[in-house]
């Protein structure tokens, strides 16, 4: 494996960052772009955060959690309950009325966002101590149970004056301009900050300790790593970011219900993590954008009956998209278990070597073709 020097890498990174920002700005200013692209990008970034936070637990610490939708629901509901403008509350809680203590509460949305994350983290801290003692499958099923408990409680009648029961909440404040930065960019900025923190985490000593636990719990413990404490930390951090992702989702959607966070949501995020590679944050990010774009945009045509001339393309009708999607997931799980990135992170060395391999392969083919076809190419 060849390595590039530090300077080239820096330049490449700077160029890539500028290119990304320019592309984002273009997607905003260019009137030619569809609103579909914009919402796919926003939703993609939110899912990227959700997937990365799940990966932190499942891929880096080796704790197979299926409770993600629950923590996202906590973040989303906390954000929504705290930020719905006072003058719109009557409209939202038209059936049950609003709890007295909340009647005059409307926090700024950035504060709501952070509190959403913290609420999810606190719940994780409370139940983590108990649930984390369970071994692999049992942990998965217990977290799954927790997510269902959250979902049912949120929709239950005793909570109606806070969460509006099964009616859900609406008029949730969305993204707003920050100074001169238009609202459109807010989710990207929030997600970018969270992802940078996560990248810092996985590359520091605590991140290494998490990986050690994933690789071999018993050896990790023998190396002086306190299993309970580190698992707890990982669980709390993952839940915090899941809470933030949930709050961002609430901002993006503007209205939420308990059914916004079903088990299927956890499965969707798991799918993104698996396609991206368990144990690779950059994989999760790439895969989140790919999956969301494919699901919400590129594969939309599968749900609509299509005609080529007079001939109706078979199979295409509502629901086919999701079938294709699940088949893709199964194919990835069965034949391509590493996903896009495996356990590696994105690096310029990786990109460079990928293209070099591609080139040698291509050249190999070319020389073969040239040998067969004589000098026809020239």
């Amino acid at each position, binding site marked *: 494996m060849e390595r590039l020097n530090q300077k080239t890498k820096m330049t490449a990174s700077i160029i890539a960052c500028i290119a990304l920002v320019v592309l984002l700005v273009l997607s905003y200013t260019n009137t030619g772009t569809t609103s579909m692209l914009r919402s796919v990008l926003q939703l993609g970034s939110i899912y990227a955060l959700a997937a990365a936070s799940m990966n932190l637990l499942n891929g880096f610490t080796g704790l197979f959690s299926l409770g993600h939708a629950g923590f996202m629901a906590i973040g989303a509901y906390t954000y929504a309950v705290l930020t719905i403008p006072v003058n719109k509350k009557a409209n939202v809680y038209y059936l049950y009325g609003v709890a007295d203590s909340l009647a005059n509460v409307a926090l700024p949305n950035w504060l709501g966002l952070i509190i959403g994350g913290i609420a999810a983290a606190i719940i994780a801290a409370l139940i983590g101590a108990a649930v984390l003692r369970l071994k692999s499958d049992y942990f998965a099923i217990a977290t799954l149970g927790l997510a269902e408990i959250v979902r049912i409680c949120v929709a239950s009648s005793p909570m109606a004056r806070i969460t509006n029961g099964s009616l859900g909440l609406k008029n949730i404040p969305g993204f707003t301009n920050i100074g001169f930065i238009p609202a459109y960019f807010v989710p990207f900025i929030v997600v970018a900050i969270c992802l940078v*923190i996560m990248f*810092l*985490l996985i590359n*520091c*000593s*605590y991140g*290494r*300790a998490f*990986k*050690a636990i994933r*690789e*071999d719990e*018993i*050896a*990790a*413990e*023998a*190396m*002086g*790593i*306190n*299993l309970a404490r580190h698992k707890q*930390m990982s669980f709390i951090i993952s839940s915090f970011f899941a809470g933030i992702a949930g709050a961002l989702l609430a901002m993006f959607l503007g209205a939420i219900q308990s059914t916004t966070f079903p088990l299927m949501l956890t499965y969707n995020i798991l799918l993104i993590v698996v396609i991206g590679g368990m144990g690779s944050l950059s994989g999760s990010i790439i895969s989140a954008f790919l999956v969301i774009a494919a699901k919400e945009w590129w594969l939309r045509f599968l749900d609509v009956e299509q005609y080529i001339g007079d001939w109706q393309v078979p199979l295409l009708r509502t629901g086919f998209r999701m079938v294709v999607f699940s088949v893709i997931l199964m194919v990835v799980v069965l034949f391509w278990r590493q996903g896009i990135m495996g*356990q590696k992170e994105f690096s310029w060395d990786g990109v460079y070597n990928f293209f070099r391999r591609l080139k040698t392969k291509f050249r190999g083919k070319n020389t073969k073709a040239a040998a067969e076809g004589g000098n026809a190419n020239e």
Partner: protein
Amino acid sequence: MSNQNVLRVCDATMQFGGVVAVNNLNLEVNKGEIIGLIGPNGAGKTTAFNVITGVYAPTNGAVELNGERIVENHPQGKMRELYNGENLGKYNDVKVLTPDRITKLGVARTFQNIRLFKNLTVFDNVLIAKHMNMKGNIFSDVFRINRKEEDRMKAETLELLRILGLEEHKDDIATSLPYGKQRHLEIARALATKPSLLLLDEPAAGMNPQESDDLMKFVGRIRNDFDLSILMIEHHMQVIMGICDRIYVLDYGTLIAEGTPAEIQNNPKVIEAYLGVDE
């Protein structure tokens, strides 16, 4: 060599259900000694290690490190009726430490079937062992507030790899190393926790005579360089006889002999345990 006591296992009994894996084990390691723990398969050697390192709490008995009692237990719950060992009532405290706490107190170990962090690099494998002594908390670590600490850990790791001759492999994935090197790496990782007592569980398993000879020299060297006391389980008799100051022999969980290599070699009980008796 001073005669200061590093490890003392006092009347340790480990019983699983009705099966007594280790029975009334008494064992001492003094400062600077290399002690061998031998016995036929299933004699309870690894179980003894697991008791010392906190993987299991002994059913009855205690473990002392540098004169301080770190583990103590007596039969509890259902075990009270099942227990059929000795020294009941001698140990009344309940003190159980998790393995990570015991590692922090200066006891490091390797495993019988190598347990490396398989998909991580050699460097990271050793660096992880430095985590427990890191100053600062997760925030200062994530936001790179104490860069110096990280730099110190990395420098120490590099130094250790250099001393142990693993420097050239530092960026390799642990499992890509040849088998013998993996054993070395496991020892290196254990040393990175700065132990005063090192427990080696069959370090020469699967090695040819040449390799085990090298390993023996290696163990002797690290004992001197790192100021260690070593307790090792081993089946290679040349290794054990060549390097150990004293040897303990376990059979069916019970200590049947202890002494210098010469004494052990001529002990009829030991010969019987290994070869069986002529009838």
